[in-house]
């Protein structure tokens, strides 16, 4: 890859074309369970929705407000309104150039990455493969796309491991993992999942926890009906900030980082400032409880700097503490084309947040750390400082 702009997004979202699943999955076998766009009625209007397993979703057919224009944020009601920029890989490269972004790590968009919800292991495996194959096509379209595979949780861990190998061979650069495993499956840190972490470590593909990482199901305040939708969005999003602080200690104190010291874990869309807390709190408990006598030989802050990565986009104050957090553990993200994205003016926000940050640090934060985490070979022209 050639670095033209000096900016890699470690968290963006690839939208799907309406036939991405129907052209990959057997119609005779799966019928209307295949993810597809259907027309439904909502408040007297005809709207398009993704339907999975015969169930129409209640959210927009494409989460792409950053490319929908004014008024912001607008979510398409009909498939015809969805700009090709969102789901067509070659078209989208133009948007990357407009925004001055060299490459992007791709997370899910509707119909999403939570197909375990239908409790049908065979279906889940088939649809996960179709999902991962679609994103492999993006990777083939351009080396500027770094897709993250999703997992067939309901299959046995060996099957999951094989799917990771298959996805990696197809161009995937990481895997997306739920912070809290689906009900009926073992805890995130249970040895049951060790074959999965083992293959990720061997292949060098980082595991990713995105946003609330599904933790809201198990760690959240009961809903209050007095909020407007905007207030509810602010209140719940502000709590995503604690996702790394709930998950990282689990991985450390349950021995996962001891057993898999080369497993990399990326926390997307959860901010960077939480890592300050995790570093201080885990070290404090490790010291005062002598946890090296309990099998946790590595000082938590050492394991964190070795294996944990966090992403920023707006935290100007947080960036001032980049050396406390770990200058090698922070990457930039755009969240394109979601509501948090500053497209097409990402650089303006980058300059605001990184005001006064020296050149060497800027390079690490904006693309060098991402090149290392995702093991990308790149040529960097001298001018990209």
């Amino acid at each position: 890859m050639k670095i033209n702009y000096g900016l890699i997004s470690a968290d963006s979202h690839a939208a799907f074309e309406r036939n991405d699943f129907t052209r990959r999955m057997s119609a005779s076998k799966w019928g209307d369970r295949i993810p597809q766009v259907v027309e439904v009625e909502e408040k007297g209007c005809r709207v398009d929705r993704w339907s999975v397993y015969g169930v129409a979703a209640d959210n927009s057919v494409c989460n792409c407000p950053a490319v929908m224009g004014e008024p912001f944020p607008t979510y398409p009601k009909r498939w015809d309104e969805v700009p090709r920029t969102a789901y067509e890989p070659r078209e989208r490269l133009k948007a990357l150039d407009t925004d001055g972004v060299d490459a992007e790590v791709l997370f899910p968009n509707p119909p999403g990455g939570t197909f375990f919800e239908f409790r049908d292991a065979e279906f889940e495996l088939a649809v996960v493969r179709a999902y991962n194959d679609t994103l492999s096509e993006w990777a083939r379209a351009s080396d500027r796309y770094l897709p993250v595979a999703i997992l067939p949780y309901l299959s046995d861990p060996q099957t999951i491991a094989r799917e990771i190998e298959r996805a990696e061979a197809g161009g995937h650069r990481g895997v997306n993992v739920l912070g809290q495993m689906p009900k009926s499956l073992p805890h995130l840190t249970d040895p049951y999942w060790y074959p999965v972490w083992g293959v990720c470590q061997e292949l060098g593909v980082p595991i990713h926890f995105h946003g609330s990482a599904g933790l809201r199901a198990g760690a959240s305040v009961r809903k209050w009906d007095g909020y407007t939708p905007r207030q509810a969005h602010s209140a719940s999003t502000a709590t995503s900030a604690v996702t790394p602080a709930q998950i990282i200690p689990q991985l450390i104190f349950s021995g996962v980082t001891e057993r898999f010291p080369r497993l990399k874990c990326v926390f997307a869309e959860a901010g960077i400032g939480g890592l300050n807390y995790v570093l201080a709190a885990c070290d404090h408990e490790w010291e005062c409880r002598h946890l090296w006598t309990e099998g946790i030989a590595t000082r938590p802050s050492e394991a964190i700097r070795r294996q944990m990565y966090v992403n920023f986009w707006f935290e100007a104050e947080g960036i001032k503490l980049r050396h406390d957090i770990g200058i090698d553990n922070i990457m930039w993200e755009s969240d394109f084309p979601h509501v948090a994205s500053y497209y097409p003016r990402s650089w303006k926000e980058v300059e605001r947040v990184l005001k006064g940050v020296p050149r060497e640090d800027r390079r690490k934060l904006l693309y060098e750390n991402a090149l290392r985490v995702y093991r990308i070979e790149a040529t960097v022209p001298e001018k990209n400082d």
Partner: protein
Amino acid sequence: MHLKYGLISVDDHIQEPPSLWTDRLSKNRFGDRVPHLERAVDGTERWMVDGQALLNGYPANAGALMADRNREPRCWNDVPSATYLASERLKAMDASGVDYSVLYPSVAGFAGEAFGRLQDPELELACVQAYNDWLIEEWAAASPRFVPQCIVPIWPVEATVEEIRRAVTKGHRGVVFPSLPMHLRSVPHVSGPEYDPVWAICEELGVPVCLHSGASNELQYAPLTGLAPALAEALDAVTKPVSSVFVISLYSFSRVLLRHPRLRIVLAESALSWGMLYMEWADHQFEHDGLAREGYDLKPSEMFHRQCWFTSWFDEVAPFAKYVGTDRILWSTNFPLATSTWPRTRETITRCFQDVSAETREKLLWKNAANLYQL
């Protein structure tokens, strides 16, 4: 107020003795539903109330004073007296250099939440009143160095308000309120107008509302079943303070703080180092979602700077003090829990306050607390 050491610890826990409730509650009326120590055939003891075990099945939480911090006492005879005797506690305070200690419960829940889970409001009120009376008679009367705080019945709201008024009249200086009563039993959501009388009485009486972390285990990611107790408890200790993000976010976005501008909120056992992230994140979200147009006079960080406090005991001050606000941070020792800085409180303070000015240090270690509790 007299200071010998220059430290007011705003978050310590007393250990309720076995006779506290059995001495004060009517045996005829409540029978063996009264909180009491129950002995098993193997000699271990645990607290029971109305058929439910309290305090994770231990007779006391005293990790900091045990030979092995990871082993809590298993019967009352093993419980160190500095946890439950005021006279012994004063010696421990002298040993670690603590002038005043603001008191939170243990059996009644570290956040005062335990009796809120009872389905019988009469038993709840009787347990709460016995605790509040005992703390004044046995601790506050023993020394002015103890700052007593009352616990409350969570519903009906008239009972909550009445008990706060009664307790403050008796000498309580703060109100330990379980931050999410609707997680304890079926009562209205704390964000709604139903709880406004509680905030109003605290404003009127000038007592802080203390929201200690851990009031609801629904806010924490539960550890792997079967994990060694030391590791499971370390996980609990790490995931608990930061769960206060949910609480402060709720009290801010649901406008409780805006409706009650003189209400003062202490986030006890919150730690400090996630505070900057929370405020920067909440303000960003507030602006991104356009909430200024939805009837908020203040941004989340402004609400915090007006009426809230973080409580720390182990994290570094310098990186966060400026942003969180040097008036908004309190210090504690968290005695006698396993996570406490005891017996290395002074060394810990030296480490945490590196590169902090003498003026800021005084504020965090005692001045802010003295102002808040009007000592």
